[in-house]
């Protein structure tokens, strides 16, 4: 006998969430670092609002979008690390020995991530309220933020899974952290693209998909309903997710050679 797909995915999703929630030191950077950076940058970069062309008088409303991306990056590392640990300890083989479908192995993990991504987004929204970020799109916008946040965490975590499946080492996954974080820094995270005066930086930020993700979140806070920015943001999130899932499928072929 074998369990249905829903049962398999549900069991693994439950385990994935339990595992994360029982490791407070994994939750700490997800909450703490984006929060502290937001608070510091909101004050430290307030002078940026004096620049001609800066889209808002509130730097915190401008900057809060970055928190969602940073949180998703930490999700990437945590998800990758957890999967790599499963491989290192042999737990992955234990799962492979059950009637678990190949797709369920990762789907279970990612469903857990999506749920946690939504929870994270709620926390960041509340944080924004606390520090004075104004969500121009209102309650409807908050729901969109939660969906986009969940999708972004999911997309990023799929790349964390690829890193884990390819390396099988939690240390190697964590060593990739600087690489993934480069994408946040080389984007429109601190200033709008129109105010990036250094030519090479402007080019890199324009090509960097993270810029469009950030701008998608940001548009809900600053402009309300900006269709173009939202389409781009969701487009990038979905595109990254599809790319990530394809890469996961490829990486699984070498990791899971189950007959």
């Amino acid at each position: 006998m074998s369990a249905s797909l829903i049962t398999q995915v549900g069991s693994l999703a439950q385990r994935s969430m339990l595992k994360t929630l029982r490791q407070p030191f994994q939750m700490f950077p997800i909450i703490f670092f984006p929060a502290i950076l937001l608070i510091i940058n909101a004050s430290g970069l307030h002078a940026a609002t004096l620049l001609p062309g800066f889209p808002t008088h509130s730097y915190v409303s401008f900057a809060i979008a970055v928190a969602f991306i940073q949180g998703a990056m930490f999700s990437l590392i945590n998800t990758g690390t957890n999967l790599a640990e499963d491989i290192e300890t042999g737990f992955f083989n234990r799962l492979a020995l059950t009637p678990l479908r190949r797709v369920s192995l990762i789907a279970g993990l990612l469903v857990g991530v999506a749920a946690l991504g939504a929870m994270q987004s709620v926390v960041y929204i509340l944080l924004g309220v606390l520090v004075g970020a104004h969500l121009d799109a209102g309650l409807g916008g908050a729901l969109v933020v939660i969906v986009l946040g969940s999708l972004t965490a999911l997309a990023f975590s799929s790349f964390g899974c690829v890193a884990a499946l390819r390396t099988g080492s939690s240390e190697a996954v964590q060593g990739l952290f600087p690489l993934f974080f480069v994408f946040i820094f080389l984007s429109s995270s601190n200033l709008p693209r129109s105010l990036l005066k250094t030519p090479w930086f402007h080019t890199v930020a324009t090509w960097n998909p993270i810029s469009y993700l950030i701008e998608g979140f940001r548009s809900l806070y600053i402009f309300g309903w900006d269709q173009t920015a939202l389409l781009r943001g969701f487009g990038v999130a979905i595109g990254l997710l599809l790319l990530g899932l394809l890469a996961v499928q490829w990486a699984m072929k070498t990791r899971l050679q189950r007959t």
Partner: protein
Amino acid sequence: MAEKGDNGIEVDGLVRDFKGGVRAVDGIDLRVAPGEIYGFLGPNGAGKSTTSLILTTLLPPTAGSARVAGLDVVHHGSEVRRLIGASLQDSALDPFLTGSEHMRLQSSLHGLPKPQREARGRELLAQVGLTEAAERKVGGYSGGMKRRLDLALALVHRPRLLFLDEPTTGLDPQSRAALWDEVRRLSVDGVTVFLTTQYLEEADALADRVGIIDHGRIVAEGTPAELKAAIGRPSVEAVPHDPGERERLAAVLERFGEPAAAASNGVAVRLPRGAGDLAEIVRAIDAENLQVADLRLHSPTLDDVFLAKTGRSLEGSAEDDDAEPAPETIPA
């Protein structure tokens, strides 16, 4: 209780290559009868774990065939997995889940109906003596407890065959004995057990038949008694108190058997009539007024079998250069 039926193992010409030209399994043939405990003995890097991974469908072979419970492991992998349980080299547990949660997860993945999951989990945890620790996170379990939980998880779906890969490595003697008892009980219930080990006494104590593997090939196979008898009779070794008396001592001993390998300061002979000659040997030495510093009777061990077949001792060959690669990371 598992049914006695077609729950044997048949392996023909099994080969597994890895990247870099490493051949971890080099043409293995073996048969395991239903209900048998088969001990797969060999040093680190011999190919034991790779063989286990192939038979448990986690790794495809490069060549050859293997049938588990009558099913080809390559073409009927999912059916094989339903019939086998495996406790592999790592305990493979999640430190943040409790024992009960592990049982629930495993039973749900195996498709046990929900009403049965709790009962089956309690039953197995009681069987391996983990009832009291069931609600504790596995991260706080001792090595022995982890191994017992690992075994319980492998039995959730009542498999007909059980693969145990070095199940007692790192365990204290008490935990080891408890695990041995459990394996014997399973065998009595009709479960076929494929046990890989590097411990001679484990193979000796548990296995109905033993296959000795070295450098990916089976070098000897049979019951422990057959294997030991095949390489010869017991030997006696004596060390003279006065090194100058060595030749006289050798002359006495050689009346009782053929010379055998001995320490540099001793003399040894193999006893064709067995250990019964020992009293005569002592009387003969005494009659010659020879004084001995040490007199020992050696019966062949599985290590002697390995030595005879490979020229190396099993117990000293842990630092083998040809260590098995981690199969997950470098497939051919």
